[in-house]
């Protein structure tokens, strides 16, 4: 650390650092240098170490030396709470350095009067979110607001890039570049595998090789100490809850100041929290934090954490980002981390003093997870994180942005196209694709074409597109944003406080008297009143646990590759727990180990059925899709498929007969007609379409207080989907839906890579009984909850039978109970 103050740091700022006993870090000085040169900058640094201050420092210096009115710096955070927290933290140095700077936040919670004032008299530094920025940019006075902007800071860039929110923000930045050409961009990011993608994202051209963005790397702290829990208990064969190890986790919590316990799903959070309290003989203050708890409750937990009042918090990804807690000295990951980048970021939540190592404990829940945890630790040690191919920006997001831009100011299509392709997610957007989206925004873009009269945008005589009327702008502003979720219901305790929200479909499957676990307690469902689920504490019977649809992230390709390599190479086994090594040795003896590059398929009889186990290691979503496609094909081959179950590692299909020709079974052509046919029927596609319809404003978001009353007026997106699919299959809404699904829930991209990779390299072992490696997946059968996320597709099929079979039965039962007196 340089003792001499940098010539770039003015005396009052340097004095402030000294008064704190600090000196500016080299990366903070590098950020100031980049600003002096007028360059944008990407700062990659672990949490802590003054990353946020590094982002703001150049702006503080500039405003200290040349005080001025007007918006100077815009700070954008993915979390409202983070924007508020950063604003509070920045007030301190601003006040202590006596800088003539106003800092304010602007989010969905900002009162209307303050928003209006902010537009008329913006502060020098404004903290906001991608959605609030989109709204600001849709006003006619946006040019005046942003004219003097000098700097845009995007925090947690790694979490935004590659998402639809990131797409919306990238388009917003492209607009800002036109309104304020002098504004620099600053990205703050956790460690990532491919900085080039973030450099491109920040560049004014949307491309990494433009050279307008400097890469600044923060000093890496002491390397993390990551340990995999060697349990004294016997390692479970299957399951994800790691209940066996929670006694040991509890002892670790006792031995540390503050522990963050990360889990992968909300259901896991509820169960782990329950179990920790059951064994909490010392009454340690342990709290729960996940995304569907009431905001108030979450704030309370965060505040208690900040005040050092808690010994542990059980959390989902809801705490992956956000406020720094210096007091955390241990991070526990229950269940496998699913990706190396994610693990690094979670570990980074501990111990923000850079000279001390972060401490983390991984708790595998089953034998495969032991391998995955080991692979993740190796990946972290060698700093090889998961790189993912950047996905092209969503056409639905583009449609929303176009409408917003028309609300701000009529545009020439050529100009907007030139602007949009400067945003990295849209850098490769073809002009005709752009025109299709514009056509959709303007008139619906339907092939039938009788909507010319009902345009939302009109072409004026000067060649600019303008909104057709104020109602269109109002509608845009009601629907802005890309965050869509399942319909949710508030959960209220005995007419008392709201505990949080759960998915409507979960509540619909409950009958009064059923119990479920939520917000860390056992609740009895009383009924639904006024759009709220009424509950009471307590109750009896096996509780249900609300599960997210698609809440589980699939294993990343990079991590899967390491697991395959480890399995194939016995030299890597020492260091694994003894029962895991024994398991692998047995597998080698009884069958064969999956090769690193090929595909092992085992078949064996069990309980009168034939099982086929596919060791694909491509993650749950891709396996789910593969399962649907394989069973279709086996049906045609006459094998009589009966069902399948997918985990992150393996797919198991059971049937009446085993297919003979594995090469034919796994032929790449399954991604043709079968895929098309399945996708059309798939409930995943319907769900994806609903999101696209919401983002594009085809259907309205439901806002609290405007819920349907009496007559059902809300439009079911399913009705629209069916009609569109039949009459206009090439429509841009459907193209956007398929593109989404290909990368997301169905993971077709990954499946397609897999089929290409294993072509001609399939090893088929026909066994007389189940192999050791197959045990975990066979145990998963019937263990998957029917209301869980993963079996959704299977259910779709089962339901067809259920409706046909179960209903006549119910119907006759109903006859005896309630025959109508006619």
């Amino acid at each position, binding site marked *: 650390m340089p003792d001499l103050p940098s010539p770039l740091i003015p005396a009052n700022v340097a004095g402030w650092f000294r008064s704190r006993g600090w000196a500016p870090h080299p990366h903070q000085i590098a950020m100031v240098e980049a600003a002096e040169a007028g360059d944008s900058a990407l700062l990659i640094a672990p949490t802590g170490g003054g990353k946020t201050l590094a982002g703001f420092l150049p702006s503080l210096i500039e405003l200290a030396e040349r005080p001025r009115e007007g918006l100077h710096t815009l700070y954008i955070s993915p979390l409202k709470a983070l924007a508020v927290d950063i604003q509070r933290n920045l007030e301190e140095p601003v006040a202590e350095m006596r800088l003539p700077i106003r800092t304010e936040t602007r989010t969905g919670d900002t009162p209307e009067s303050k928003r209006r004032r902010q537009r008329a008299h913006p502060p020098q530094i404004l903290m906001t979110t991608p959605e609030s920025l989109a709204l600001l940019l849709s006003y006619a006075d946006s040019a005046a607001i942003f004219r003097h902007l000098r700097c845009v800071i995007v925090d947690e860039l790694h979490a935004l890039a590659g998402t639809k929110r990131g797409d919306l923000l990238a388009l917003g930045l492209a607009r800002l570049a036109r309104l304020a050409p002098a504004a620099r961009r600053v990205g703050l990011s956790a460690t990532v595998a491919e900085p080039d993608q973030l450099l491109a994202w920040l560049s004014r051209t949307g491309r990494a090789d433009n050279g307008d963005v400097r890469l600044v790397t923060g000093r890496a702290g002491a390397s993390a100490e990551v340990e995999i829990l060697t349990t004294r208990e016997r390692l479970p064969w299957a399951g994800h809850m790691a209940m066996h190890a929670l006694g040991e986790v509890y002892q670790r919590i006792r031995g540390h100041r503050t522990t963050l316990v990360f889990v992968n799903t909300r259901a896991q959070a509820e169960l782990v929290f329950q179990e920790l309290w059951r064994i909490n003989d010392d009454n340690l203050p342990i709290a729960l934090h996940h995304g569907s708890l009431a905001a108030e409750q979450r704030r309370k937990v965060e505040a208690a954490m900040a005040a050092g009042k808690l010994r542990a918090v059980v959390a989902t990804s809801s705490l992956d980002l956000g406020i720094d807690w210096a007091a955390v000295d241990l991070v526990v990951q229950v269940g496998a981390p699913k990706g190396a980048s994610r693990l690094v970021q979670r570990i980074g939540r501990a111990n923000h003093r850079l000279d001390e190592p972060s401490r983390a404990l991984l708790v595998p829940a089953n034998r495969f997870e032991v391998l995955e945890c080991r692979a993740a630790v190796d990946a972290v040690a060698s700093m090889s994180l998961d790189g993912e191919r950047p996905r092209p920006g969503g056409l639905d997001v583009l449609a929303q942005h176009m409408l917003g831009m028309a609300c701000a100011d009529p545009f020439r299509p050529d100009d907007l196209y030139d602007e949009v392709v400067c945003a990295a997610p849209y850098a490769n957007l073809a002009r005709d694709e752009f025109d299709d989206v514009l056509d959709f925004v303007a008139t619906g873009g339907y092939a039938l074409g009788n909507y010319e009269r009902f345009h939302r945008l009109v072409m004026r005589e000067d060649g600019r597109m303008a909104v057709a009327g104020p*109602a269109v702008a109002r509608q845009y502003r009601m629907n802005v944003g890309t965050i869509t979720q399942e319909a949710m219901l508030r959960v209220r305790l005995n007419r008392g406080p709201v505990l949080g929200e759960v998915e409507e479909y979960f509540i619909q499957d409950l009958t009064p008297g059923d119990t479920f676990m939520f917000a860390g307690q056992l609740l009895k469902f009383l009924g639904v009143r006024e759009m709220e689920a009424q509950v009471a504490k307590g109750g009896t019977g096996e509780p249900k646990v609300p599960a997210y649809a698609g809440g589980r992230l699939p294993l990343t390709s990079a991590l899967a590759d390491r697991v395959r390599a480890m399995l194939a190479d016995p030299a890597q086994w020492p260091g694994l727990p003894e029962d895991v090594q024994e398991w692998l040795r047995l597998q080698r003896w009884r069958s064969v180990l999956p090769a690193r590059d090929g595909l092992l398929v085992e078949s064996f009889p069990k309980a009168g059925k034939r099982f086929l186990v596919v060791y694909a290691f491509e993650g749950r979503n891709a396996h789910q899709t593969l399962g649907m496609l394989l069973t279709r094909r086996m049906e045609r081959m006459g094998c009589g498929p009966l069902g399948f179950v997918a985990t992150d590692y393996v797919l198991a299909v059971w049937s009446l007969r085993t297919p003979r020709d594995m090469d034919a079974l796994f032929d790449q052509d399954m991604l043709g007609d079968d895929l098309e046919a399945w996708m059309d029927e798939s409930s995943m596609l319907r769900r994806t379409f609903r999101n696209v319809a919401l983002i594009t404003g085809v259907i309205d978001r439901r806002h609290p207080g405007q819920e349907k009353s009496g007559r*059902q007026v809300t*439009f079911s997106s399913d009705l629209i989907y069916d009609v569109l699919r039949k009459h206009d299959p090439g429509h841009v809404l459907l193209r956007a839906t398929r593109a989404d699904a290909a990368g997301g829930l169905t993971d077709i991209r990954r499946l397609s890579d897999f089929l290409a990779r294993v072509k001609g390299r399939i090893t088929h072992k026909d066994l007389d009984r189940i192999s050791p490696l197959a045990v975990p997946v066979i145990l998963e059968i019937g263990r998957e909850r029917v209301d869980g996320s993963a079996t959704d597709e299977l259910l779709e099929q089962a*339901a067809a039978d259920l409706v046909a079979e179960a209903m006549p039965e119910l119907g006759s039962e109903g006859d005896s109970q309630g025959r109508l007196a006619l």
Partner: protein
Amino acid sequence: MAMDTTITLRGAALAPDASGALVWPAERTLVVADLHLEKGSAFAARGRMLPPYDTRATLDRLAGLVERLKPARVICLGDSFHDRRAASRMDPADVERLKALTVRAEDWVWVTGNHDPEPPEGFGGRIVDELALGPLTFRHEAVPGAVGELSGHLHPAAAVLVPGRRVRERCFAFDGAKLILPAFGAFTGGLNVLNPAISGLLAKPFEVHLLARGKVHRFPAGRLSPDSG
């Protein structure tokens, strides 16, 4: 084993069809409710760019039924057109489709509804406020206490819980005295029959004939699940 889903109303044997239409074989009569033609374009006119194919989709389904059943009489139970200007927004090809369809039954009857108190002329067929036919009365909105009445208007739907999931679909609602038909139109949602707007009109216990997976399934009201809204 097919379930018997025939409905007997004042001695008339009526067959609910899985398409949402009702067939009265003795009278060679086909009844459909709430076509809501041009609902999509009505939304589009207000800036909601729904696909414009709902009229075509609805007419295709109706034409398929007419082709299959060859009825002598077709009764549209009101709200056939989504609003007064629906005809003016209809695609010319769809106008021709509809004209060709109405001449295929000897008697095509447009019952008026609240959305179409004055259905457009020129599509063929006759327009009535309500229709009495033998023991039965056909009208758009159910009248409390009426007997032998067929109506639409309410878009009934019902939900049942089967192991592992909830099935919610359109349905016929029947209490022995009156029968409420589901909406036939492509963009028509449904209101749960347990909502007082529907259940309040029906004598208890009533039953529904649920349209699921291409079949009609009969359930007593006691087996139904309410909506959470």
